[in-house]
């Protein structure tokens, strides 16, 4: 057990699965070479943010495929490879690029098992970077998880830290269905204790990051860390929140949230996405339909505004749900 970063946890998950299972391969833009087109194997940077470092050297060009800049080909290739017996882990460098390859994902990969009556499967993983905070501007900072969550046949995973990232990615690679694995780019440097051995975390099982009786706070991905920071300020004033990280939006652990709201009666949802058709609105509706009688106050949602992600740093910081906004929302739901 050692302290590892989110980036290292993802790298380790891929490496350990590639060692265990020769049908696992990875493909994507710059996943071998990385920044600036480095030449030899020893130099290989491994992805624009270094996440796939070392894999080319260990597994070679047949299993670590640097692709041209053509997402439609990458995802089409991955879908076909998955349908014919391989287990590809394809990288969509920024989730914002999904537009040019979405057909392969939602209309092919997600539908194969159903439309072939179970006679074919698509065991592929699409790893992709989401989220704002690195000043990457409107076309490189979205989260877009509601879009994928909406599609039956796609699994959607949003790890909030290194320990979860490794276990969920190993589970995703072993899963026989197409999985969207959403890595928040602002979390790559986060460190925590991660076991050296391989392990899996099941999908559809929320994590109770904090336990408390005053208010239920549901948060996703980086927002889990934001809510955790807000929790310590709230605790000083005697407010103990129950912080739930669903880990996966599809399949989704409804039961844990409903059970928690039954006890606390108060719900705050923190979702780094614009509010229309978001996970925040989805979860609020879930509780309003199935847990209405337990609510002591209206549901509070803390989301990004309905705008593109700004490039100006001050505006980008205003866009991202902050610790202060979470704190204020919890106090409102308690009053």
């Amino acid at each position, binding site marked *: *057990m050692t302290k590892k970063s989110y980036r290292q946890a993802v790298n380790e998950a891929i490496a350990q699965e590639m060692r265990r299972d020769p049908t696992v391969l990875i493909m994507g833009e710059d996943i071998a070479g990385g920044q600036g087109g480095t030449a030899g194997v020893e130099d290989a940077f491994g992805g624009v943010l270094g996440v796939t470092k070392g894999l080319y050297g260990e597994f070679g060009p047949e299993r670590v495929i640097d692709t041209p800049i053509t997402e439609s080909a990458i995802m089409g290739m991955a879908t076909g490879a998955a349908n014919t017996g391989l287990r590809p882990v394809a990288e969509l460098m920024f989730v914002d690029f999904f537009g040019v390859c979405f057909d392969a994902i939602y209309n092919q990969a997600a539908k194969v098992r159903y439309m072939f009556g179970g006679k074919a499967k698509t065991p592929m993983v699409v790893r992709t970077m989401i989220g704002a905070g690195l000043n990457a501007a409107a076309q490189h900072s979205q989260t877009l998880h509601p879009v994928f969550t909406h599609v039956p046949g796609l699994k959607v995973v949003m790890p909030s830290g290194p*320990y979860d990232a490794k*276990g969920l990615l190993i589970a995703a690679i072993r899963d026989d269905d197409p999985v969207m694995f959403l890595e928040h780019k602002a979390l790559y440097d986060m460190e925590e204790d991660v*076991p*050296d*051995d*391989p*392990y*899996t*975390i*099941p999908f559809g*099982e929320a994590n*109770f990051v904090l*336990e408390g009786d005053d208010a239920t706070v549901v948060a996703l991905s980086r927002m889990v860390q934001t809510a955790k920071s807000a929790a310590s300020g709230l605790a000083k004033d005697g407010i103990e929140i129950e912080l739930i990280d669903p880990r996966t939006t599809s399949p989704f652990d409804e039961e844990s949230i409903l059970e928690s709201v039954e006890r606390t009666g108060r719900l705050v949802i923190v979702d780094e996405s614009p509010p229309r058709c978001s996970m925040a609105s989805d979860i609020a509706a879930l509780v309003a339909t199935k847990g209405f009688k337990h609510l002591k106050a209206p549901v509070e949602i803390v989301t990004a505004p309905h705008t593109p992600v700004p490039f100006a740093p001050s505006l980008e910081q205003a866009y991202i749900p902050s610790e202060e906004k979470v704190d204020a929302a919890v106090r409102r739901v308690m009053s």
Partner: protein
Amino acid sequence: MSAILPIVMPKWGLAMEEGRILEWHAAEGAEIARGQDLVDIETTKITNTLQATDGGTVRRLVGSVDEVYPCGALIAVLAEPDVPDADINAFVDSFVVVVPETEDDTGPEFKTLEAGGLRFRYVEEGEGQETVLFLHGFGGDLLNWMFVQPDLAASARTIALDLPGHGASSKDLGDIKDMEGLARAVAAFLTAAGIEKAHVVGHSMGGGVALALAKAEPARVASLTLLAPAGLGALVNTQFLADFIAAKRRRQMTPVAEALFADPSVVSTEMVEEIIRFKRLDGVEEVLKTLAAALADAGRAEAPAGIPVRVLWGSEDKIVPPPADLPAPFAFTRIEGVGHMPHMEAVAAVTEAIAAQIRS
């Protein structure tokens, strides 16, 4: 004579950095005996009671309730009543906290070695003529000994290891199916580590392993100290084992963990989360099922000839309920008010029993 004895915040396990004082059990001026409960301390992993390592009069309670102190910080001072207050004041004022560097700590560290085709993680602490080997129980790991090992490391070479399938040791048991198999693996470890003979301390399933080791290789075992052991004919609570294996989430595992202790409030969220995380590791579920089957049928070992055996058992043990007594040559001690974890719930009694084995 006129010695002043500092009581410091203990370091329970390698990860502990600080502790919070919950409650003092002795007031200033009180006379306390060695082994007596002194103070309840809460860490992120567990809440436990620090017992006095020596008798004396409590001259100063330096640590305040609800305050957090780093490991090594002075929290109380014991001395005889004839030591002047001025001396006590001077001692407190001049006390220097030894804060170990996180990287270059001269304290114990995790090590690994390969033996019999398996990787073992272990912690080695202390030096001395005698070697003490600690074997944890079902689903446990070497950290279970964190309250007991440091005390004994003061005067002996101590080694606590992760049994195959547990902690950070290999999770693939190979052809190991039972405690005899684990004992063979432990023997291979001893050979690889160059240890000819050791005082073996075993808890629960580890006790069964210790008995099997003593039967198979008696020349390696100087003495046995068994805590709530499997393998002496007491029936193991198989429902507990099944619940332990079945629990997938903290909510399910918490009551299982609480059943281990006479006082369930010592179980922290972090302790339960660590058990859940251990169970997620590849291969662990298989290991636990295999060993649970062996424990259901643990048998009754004979006392190994020529090897002194002490057995300590908590009266409130719900996992391996204690017998009324054990025949000679087993030296049996029943500890009142203690559950299945005497090495955490009755630290002084356990360290004293092991120390006595080493002395004799």
